[in-house]
């Protein structure tokens, strides 16, 4: 359980970083119109990771 907690905590921090500065700043510089694509792609990635995590810990 402790190991699973650590992985989930790491995933939460990863997700917070994905949706905040500085990665959004990098996406912003990639060109106008890229930010919406980036945000939804990151969102999808987080969902896939949580799903995969749930499977590994025996959902």
């Amino acid at each position, binding site marked *: 359980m402790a190991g*699973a907690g650590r992985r989930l905590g790491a995933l939460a921090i990863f997700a917070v970083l994905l949706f905040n500065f500085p990665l959004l700043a990098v*996406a912003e510089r990639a060109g106008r*119109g890229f930010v919406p694509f980036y945000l*939804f792609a990151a969102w*999808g990635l987080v969902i896939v990771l949580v799903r995969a995590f*749930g499977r590994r810990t025996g959902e």
Partner: protein
Amino acid sequence: MPWLILALSVGYLGLLFLVAAWGDRGGRRLIQSPWAYTLSLAVYCSGWTYYGSVGLAAQSGLAFLPIYLGPTLTALLFPFLLHKMLKIARTCGITSIADFIAARYGKDAGLAGLVTVVAVMGAIPYLSLQLKALSLAIETLDDGQGFRPLLDDDALLVTLALAGFAIVFGTRHIDATETHRGMVLAVAFESVVKLLAFLAVAAYAVWGIGGGVGAVFARAAAEGREGLLSMSGTGLSWLDWFLLTLLSSMAFLVLPRQFQVAVIENVDEGHLAHAAWAFPAYLLLINLLVLPVALVGLQAGVGAGDLILLQLPLKAGNLAVATIAYLGGLSAATAMIIVATIALATMLSNDLVIPVLLRSRRLRLQEMPDLRGLVLLVRRAGILALLLLSYLFYRLIGGGYALASIGLISFAAVAQFVPAILAALYWRDANRRGAFYGILFGTAVWLYTLIVPALAQSGWIGAGVVADGPFGIALLRPQALFGLEGLHPVSHALVWSLAFNGLLLTLCSLLGGQDALERLQAVLYVDVYERQGVVRPWRGDSPAGELHDLLVRFIGAGRAEGVMRLDARERGRRLLPDEPADAAFVQRVERKLGQAIGSASAHVVVASVVKGEVIGAAGLMEILDETSQVIGYSQRLEQKSRALEKASRELREANERLRQLDRLKDDFLATVSHELRTPLTSIRSFSEILIDAPDLDPAERERFLAVIVRESERLTRLIDDVLDLSKIESGRMDWRIEALDLNAVASDALAAVEGFLAERGIEAKADLPPKGAPVRADRDRLLQVLVNLLSNAAKFAPEGQGLIRLAVARTAEGFEVRVEDNGPGIPEKFREAVFDKFQQASDTLKDRPKGTGLGLTICRQIVGRFGGRVWIEDARQGGAALCFTLPAT
């Protein structure tokens, strides 16, 4: 048109009733599906999401997203944070968020009341948002005609209709912890409807009107609206973006309606892991086309208001799609209103009104025989009052605000519960005073920083208060408190309100203490996984009958009887009416009452009946100490008992091994003695004859002397063998391992037994590898093995016609040595036994050959020491073949 809208609305609400009724009666399988739970969580997506997100996107691009990214982040913590809340709610019979907080801080009625008031204050803007969304949708759909035939005010008509619906729908049961299966199923159904409706209308707008996402984005860029596709277009700073994400992540868990569906209505903890990914996926889907739809709205010239989703199909003249859009919006708003009003009405009755009424001596409620009707009446009145207050808010304040702005004001209000809840879950020393003052001052700051500017904007107070601060004090400006400027108004309010809230909670908890019940509940909350057992804070001697009567008044005779039966089953007998109720029974009654009227009210009611008292701090600590000591002692005993069991098992095994060894030793000694006695007896007998008969015939004398010599040799061999075996087994043998040619040792062995073989008329053949057989071994011991095997073969080979073959061959293991004879062979079943001490294959034969019975045992030990193995198989010429291997160097 108004009648079409009315018919659609009534038809849709009727369908909801059918779904709920089906869910209440059956639908157990559906409700136990994780999808039902996940979809019920999507009650988060209300009219704000359905209409407001598009409106906000049309004005500020991606600024609508933090409201959904926040819950996505919270969902990651479902398996831990929400799981703990679920466990506590189950253990304590929690009925609402107010109950959850108050129960942790000593079941304090004052705190429960405060949380209820704040929740209601926070919910009113949110409910008004739904009323606004619905009435605007109706106005848009009927082109401003309104329901003139019924009422001159669309919003009021919507309010009254929804109040009636929520009352009939949500107050059918009194037990607030009972899962409302029908309601959950109806809400899940609504989540499907609003998602499908949104996607259908959005797809129509983007592809049917806008020509596809690419074309819409390209036009936006050409029209100079590309700012809406970037972070700079949101008008939010990075800090605002972060704070709004944080705010929505917190609000998601503590909004009364979210707490209701996520905690109270949960039927299976296992659903959390599913919802952790499926709920964010729902949010992603419902937001995917928000920005393109907003851009299409702007490009189509319908404006940047909240109703783009409805206006687009209307402008395109597609009434069918507009109807779908309206139904989706109706679905989103009604789901929120139903769940929110049920949750808030339960809080209002359990944590605010009923406790006050119960305390009133004038009303004499304590003497009323049946209070169920009163509880239901309070809840129904609560629903009506909530919706009417929301209507007033909409008319007086909210009319000038966008949907998203109103929603964020509500979020900031309920965020005031977060410090108290986190402390409840993880900080044992947090106390009631800290939670109370934290929430109180946090809410006051919320009022000052968000509601005061709203009142100013609506013209209820002077705008100067916001612009210059009260009495012209710039540091107290509501939207730039203490000089903090540049933040979004909601971010600004969040920062200051949570700062005051958290500070007061921490300070009061560090400086103040806890009463006994608080301490007890703190342990129960923080260590809920470790302490699933019941903690009993009551002691007293009130009769069980009085407590039973109390139950009857609040939950009815049938349910009270159920409680009595359950108690009787668990204690093995039914308590008599005049028998003193023990702590377990008092707590059972309190818990059951708590499910109907909340833990704080239940505590007050039970305290009024039980003639005993809640155990004081000293008494409680005494009991806890005793209990802790007993538990500790019991754990130590258990550990010791387990260690003793293990030691005992090991001793038994060791003893068994020793017994076996002892038996083997006895057998060995007996056998050795027997084997020694046989030649000794012969020697002694023949020696005595020689002494007693000096005139014995010389030939006879010589024969006797030969026997004596032969038996002496046998005795010597036996003693040598026993000593060898003893040395090998005890590890005292002096091994001189060196590189050898096995061929040479084999030839020496053949030479050593040559005389013996010739004497018995046995022919010996050697089959040795021409290139030699290099091995590493002790030469003398290897020679001993070969001589032993050859002698053994010679003993069994038929005298005069015997044939022995000694062969050395290269194998994968190294070298294999085979000593074959043409004797009777060794039966399969003895081939292992002959390697045991004093066991000979000839034990079954009539003529036992001469030998010590230790030869093969010694051979196996020696070969094993060299890294080889010994076995027996059939020889090619029909006798036995004794084989062994040695590793090659």
